[in-house]
């Protein structure tokens, strides 16, 4: 379990993996793995088509329905600006947190 202040940023690393926090619909945040399922591209830098609910990876243009990505979303709860997310238990809790533009519209 990690705790983040969403005013400070929306990308973090835990256990060697990168995750990003994004707003999938107004007021609703999700924590998604950053690595594209295709070749590991940075999904946080992709472009999002809200009409089609599809995220496009910046590396190869692979398009993923948001629903598919959400199946891998980390369990999390936001209270105001504070976000608690459960990272997999076997990953170290050390977190590097930084601000970086997200593919989905960033909340903060």
């Amino acid at each position: 379990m990690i705790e983040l202040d969403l005013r400070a940023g929306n990308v973090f690393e835990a256990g060697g993996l990168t995750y990003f926090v994004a707003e999938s619909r107004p007021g609703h945040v999700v924590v998604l793995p950053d690595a594209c399922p295709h070749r590991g591209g940075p999904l946080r830098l992709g472009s999002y088509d809200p009409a089609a609910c599809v995220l496009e990876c910046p590396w190869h243009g692979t398009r993923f329905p948001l629903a598919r990505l959400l199946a891998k979303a980390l369990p999390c709860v936001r209270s105001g600006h504070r976000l608690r997310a459960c990272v997999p238990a076997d990953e170290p809790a050390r977190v590097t947190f930084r601000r970086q533009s997200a593919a989905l519209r960033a909340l903060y």
Partner: protein
Amino acid sequence: MSTTSAPRPQAVAIPRELFRDALLRFGSCPLFGNTEEWLMEDNPYRRPVRPQVLRYMDFEQVLGRADILTYSSLAANRLLLNVYESDLVLLPAHGLGMKEDDFRLFYAPEIRVHAEMIRPTLERHVFGFLGTEIDVSGTWTKDALAAYFTTLFDTVRSSDELPLVRALRGSSNPRHAALTLLIQLAGDFLSEASAMTRNVLGKFDQAQSELFKIVIDELGYGVHRAKHSTMFERTMSSVGLEPEIHTYWQFYLTSSLLLNNYFHFLCKDHAQLFRYLGALFYVETMFRKICRDIGDCLAQTFGGQADIEYFREHAHIDKHHGEMVLHKVLLPLIDRHGTGIIPDMVRGFEEAKLVGEIADEDFAAQVAWSDNEQAYKALHDRVYANVLAAGERPPVQQFVEPRGELSVTHVHDGDELCHIVSGVMRFVTGHERSVLLHAGEGTVIERRRLHGAIIESEECVYDIHSIGDRHRWL
């Protein structure tokens, strides 16, 4: 696997005009009218809501977190508690006597129909902010839930003094602060577990029986003196407070009403069962520390005079209740109904925490407000002089009131300046806490702080200047 809880299917809304009509009819019930007394002595049906201002309120807006202590919230929460408690059996401790008409009116079907018509809009008004403030997402499993609870408990265990306890200990009048706290708790504790009992009927297998065990613990297994509300009555009596429910109706803070109503709100709607159980788990686990600390504070403040058995009992039994809720209710329900119910549980847990924090902050601010009533009175002269000297003066209203006229407690959304033109007013900042204001004197009224007034001369003429932010006039 579970993700975010599904939004509720849209129900047919109550038309605006029907809501407004029902609101005014409900508010016009004689039981909810203004009063000439500060205390509602042994009459659980008399609950003033200041009906004269209801027509000016906009309850159809959802209040944000920043506005949850405004007058609109106070008014809506007073109304809501009246709505919810018409489901409960309440009888005066010293017999119905002359109150029989009140008793019958409180439960009158016509009143209850209006109550139900206004309930959804009022609930959205005061609880809608929780949907914005709390957001649950992702793929929740039992392991993730366990990790989440463990982290939260570790945080609480290692936390410093609770804000509520800090307010008690830091008060310049700890005795009054402690009485104020007991008054805030009384609104809920004197009918303890009533909201919860809404969720023990029906059929939901083993979890239902486990929940029932907690309810009967709260009710003392039918032994009246062991009933938790009876224990709390003894606490009240031991420090000189009246033990009858809602005697101190006028002194409930907005957040105390909000907290009490929150559990009725969840339990009244059975589709919120899992959300409620998350909130219950928070209360049963966190309440231990709160009760231990409050019990210590009361013992310290009142010495041997205070009966703190209620708090000692909770510090003990809630350890068991917390484990019962987790292992006998939450986890078995997840096994049976799937992880899809977890987000609602997490939501309830976080909501109960947030509403509790709001109540703590509000209580601390009110204690500070009462403690500083002389300082606010002293501010009057400077602020009044600056208001008179200002090119553009703030809006002002003048009131002329006769002896005995009581202004039912309320809050303002901005700072106000009260200036006495003639006569004498007793300005009340809490139960048995007041300052006397004579002609030429006055006080600054801090925004969102509960206060009332009573006229103590044949007539009193006073002005209320809406100064907005007092710092601007200093």
